């Protein structure tokens, strides 16, 4: 049951992030939305790997069945890559603001 509430929260986070990415016009807000949506997808994977009463995927921690280690390994890499790409995206936003003096995508599109 905890896993299902985790899944529900994950979908809610992903939906919130997606909504922010589409409706906001500021690139910083879009990145924030991407961040939240990515958090939702990470939580989704972790919640999928969970079973109630399962032990961590470490040898010798009990006789009960273990959780699925594969989504956890995926999430481990996803978090680090997310950090790196977010840093790169923020650096690009700084360059964009320096050159075009706006973070509004509509103005950026109109000016070409």
């Amino acid at each position, binding site marked *: 049951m905890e896993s*299902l509430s985790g*899944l*529900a929260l994950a*979908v809610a986070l*992903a*939906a919130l992030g*997606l*909504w922010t990415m*589409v*409706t906001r016009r500021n690139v910083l807000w879009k990145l924030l939305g991407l961040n939240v949506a990515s958090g939702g997808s990470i939580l989704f994977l972790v919640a999928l*790997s969970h*079973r109630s009463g*399962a032990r*961590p*995927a*470490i*040898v*010798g921690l009990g006789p009960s*069945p*273990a*959780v*699925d*280690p*594969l989504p*956890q*390994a995926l999430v*481990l*890499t996803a*978090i*680090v*890559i997310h*950090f*790196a*790409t977010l*840093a*790169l995206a*923020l*650096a*690009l936003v*700084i*360059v964009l*603001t*320096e050159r075009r003096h706006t973070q509004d995508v509509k103005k950026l599109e109109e000016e070409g």
Partner: protein
Amino acid sequence: MKWITAGVLLGLAALLGLGIAGVWPRPEFPDPDPIATEWDVENAVAAIVLGVRLWDTLFEVLVYALAMVGVRFFLSGMRWQGILPPLAETPLLRRSADLLFGPILVFAVYVAVSGHIGPGGGFPAGIILGSGLLLLALAKGVEHLSTELYEPKLEGLEYVAVAATLFLGAIVLIVGVRSSAAFVAGNLLVALEVAIGAWVVVHRFASARGEV
């Protein structure tokens, strides 16, 4: 556009509702212990990250290093002109940073070294060490810490760590070494690379502040 988004969101909610209603069966997982023992470790997640799916990790290390090169490239021309205005600091912060950095460093090394037998690994260890460097940077000032750390040499060390990780990965993949020593070395190298990358982000963003 908003209507399309609303539709997509409704679709997500519907998928979730179907999942909760039990439309898709959730099978029991296979036992991960044989994977861990096959790679001579105890943590099955470590066996997957640095063993079964080593290709993923190697390319992830490459992507991380490339992203840090990008951050360095884009922000290198945006140094704050003149002396950086110092952050508001207190003696309490300076003292506590001096006191805490040693234990943080030891804990990061412990997390990296014990990553194959328990919770931990190179990535969390690197981020722990990066957070410790952030604490020191807050206490001492970013530019001061950057000269103390010999930053150009540190950047060279990051490339060495990436190359060593790729070399180690090649040994594990081609020669087929399956020993916990390779996991310890891999975790330490990944921790070093992630920590230096985190420091690059902290330093570049801090030294470009106020420019735009």
